[in-house]
């Protein structure tokens, strides 16, 4: 196997549009990078911000959310509900030091198999350029740091910063 970094992208695809688009890409035998791991949800509106954070925490290098085009949502407007959470997440990730390119939201309709391929390939290249995120390893590092530091002192500072 060539020694290139294969990013792991956790993908939340809505059942009606993007999941179907991915099926269409398959039926059309389009080729794209084997970097996504798809979690099917009925609607992109089901995607809880915690899912995204959990994905990064558990080792994803990127998270892709695919929903129907605005106005086309099977549940009328679930996709736009997620759009709000997406904007919040982008800001939050930036604060956490996670590059915004690692989170992507795309509207991909059931007929846009080629769009799906393009998005996955693009995102794979972008994240490959960024390198691995290594969140689980960081957590371990931070956990050991916390153990040696003065815990109570650390907490106070943290609370102070938040205010």
């Amino acid at each position, binding site marked *: *196997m060539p020694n290139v970094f*294969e990013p*792991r992208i*956790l993908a939340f695809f809505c*059942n*009606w*549009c993007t*999941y*179907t688009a*991915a*099926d269409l*890409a*398959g*039926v059309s*035998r*389009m*080729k*794209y*990078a*084997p970097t*996504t*791991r*798809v*979690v*099917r*949800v*009925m*609607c992109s*509106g*089901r*995607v*809880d*911000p*915690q*899912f995204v954070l*959990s*994905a990064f925490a*558990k*080792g*994803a290098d990127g998270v892709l959310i695919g929903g129907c085009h605005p*106005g*086309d949502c*099977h*549940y*009328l*407007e*679930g996709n736009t*509900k*997620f759009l709000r*959470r997406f904007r919040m997440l982008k800001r939050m990730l930036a604060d956490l030091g996670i590059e915004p390119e690692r989170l992507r939201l795309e509207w991909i*309709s*059931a*007929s*846009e198999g080629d769009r799906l*391929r393009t998005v996955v390939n693009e995102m794979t290249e972008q994240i490959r350029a960024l390198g691995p995120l290594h969140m689980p390893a960081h957590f371990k590092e931070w956990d050991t740091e916390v153990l040696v530091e003065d815990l109570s002192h650390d907490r106070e500072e943290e609370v102070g910063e938040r205010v």
Partner: protein
Amino acid sequence: MEHEVHTNGKEEVRIGFYICHCGSNIGGTIDVAAVADYVRTLPGVVVSKDYKYMCSNAGQDMIVEDIEINRLNRIVVAACSPLLHEKTFRSATHKGGINPFFFHMVNIREHGSWVHEDKALATEKAKAVARGAVGRVRFHKALEKRKEPVTQSVLIVGGGIAGIQAAQTLSNAGKKVYLVEREPTIGGHMALFDKTFPTLDCAACILTPKMTDIGSDPNITLWSYAEVVDVKGYVGNFTAQIRHKPRYIKEDLCVGCLDCIDNCVFKQGNTDDEFNQSLSKRKPVYIPFPQAVPKLVVIDPEACTHLNGGKCEQSCATACERDAIDFNQKESFDDIEVGTVIVTTGFKTFDAARKPLYGYGRYDNVYTALEVERLVTSSGPTGGEVVLRDGRRPKTVAIVHCVGSRDHQTNRWCSRVCCMYSLKLAHLIKEHTGAEVFNFYIDMRCAGKGYEEFYERLLEEGNRFVRGRVAEVTDVPVSAEEEGKLVVKVEDSLAGFVRRIPVDMVVLSTGLEPRQDASNVRRMFNISCSSEGFFLERHPKLAPISTTTDGVFIAGCCQGPKDIPDTVAQAGFAAGEAMALLDKGFVEMEPMTSFVNEELCSGCKTCIGLCPFSAITRDDAKEVAVINPVLCKGCGVCVAACPSGAITQNLFEDCEIFAEIEEVLAHA
């Protein structure tokens, strides 16, 4: 192998994992045995097998037997898309004696072997998603499908040949049908045609009896000059609102005597006759064509002097013995309940002016095929005489194929009917005028029963066929014989040189397109469109008339260009599917709805405004949110938004999804 006891906190979990080769479809790219070996090592997995075709009877039986022998209580199948075979394996799981929702499916074909080339990486990806499924399935709970009764009626949208055929089939089975047509009459495009290919039987002779039957059928409520404006509900229980445009005629009083038309103050037509493709004029009070169904006159508010606020003696109203004319008529609405919907909204023809080089709209003697359909019809604007706008009979005629079809500048698709209708028009023009007829084609596509034979017949009749896409139609002569003619410039790709062929008349065989408002219709019925804009079927081979919305079917050219026989077949198929749904009497609702844990709910009302279906209310006594399971469609928006984590979506529970995320990523 000794199995280590594994629980999800409530019960011992015993998972069976099955991975499908799908012949070489999966097995050719993914090392299925390696995936099975890997999954066997995961906690809770009791059985892990690979098999050639899991969806076969033998594959399903294997699951059934293993459940019994190994006391399995969770099943995971890694194979094709769940949209294809989830049902199959759920029922196998059920047959094995456990709840069908103790099952989860992993897509390693459409999302795996078919889209990846690197076998090692594709295998690793399959392992990861299989692990995710094994991780989530342990949390699955037993679920029941709710049964809902089906309203015993069908809404058909569009009264062309597809809608007519579907309505008749359903009525023959005794079903109640609402047929809604936007135009004043049913009949659609077929009513415009003179003859039909390849048999050359008269279109009116085969269509109008069907139209009349529809008009008098007690099972069919025909609403023409009406539109569906709103649709709500779900399979088995739709409600629709219909808007009736004012005809300015009391429909129950009008008997179609047409005295009003004769007595209109306009002695001649004053406005373009749409039915005759604007080749003639009609009056403001009119009937689209003599065999219109329903046979009711309409007053065109754009063309009528009185309705435009002008002074008019209203002689039409005076002439009507039954006082049927009502200038104060307003639009009205009907709300109906139906169990299923068939969308048969048809197509529009390509606007030939979008190809400026063909001169449509610039040169009088360039016609569209539909215009010529009207010219060759004995009931048409010229009484069936094929004459040019200046009254001359054409001696030479060019028929240009593929106008707005197979063209990367406009529409890429083949419109499927143009070759055949061009042949039909060539035959009819020759028959009516004795003209020399040239067909300019890219390929002759005559696939259909009796179609190739018809092509041969045309060849024998002495029609000319030139292979080549026409570059231009021009009236600029370069020789004496081109003087006063239209010149068709084309590269004759069989002879290998550019030709200029002077003719008297050019017929543009325009292609078929989605209707302009197709995307509005699509949204109203919550169905999808293909990239070109035709309605998208659920499966191109096996579910060509179903859509992504249960209970909404499509038939005819709104799904893609097709000829009359195919349209009729599809319409019958759609009627059959609708009937199956009605006769079953109930629908099983997917159990993926959400419910509120009252212990956790703080009554904050965040979820209430988010629900697009108004399924959530607040129980003010208990101070908690309540979700109505009948209205809930299971999108999960409220679940993701609930700040206290009080809402759970069946089959998409937080614990299930978190487990899936963690396990998918746990495989390095």
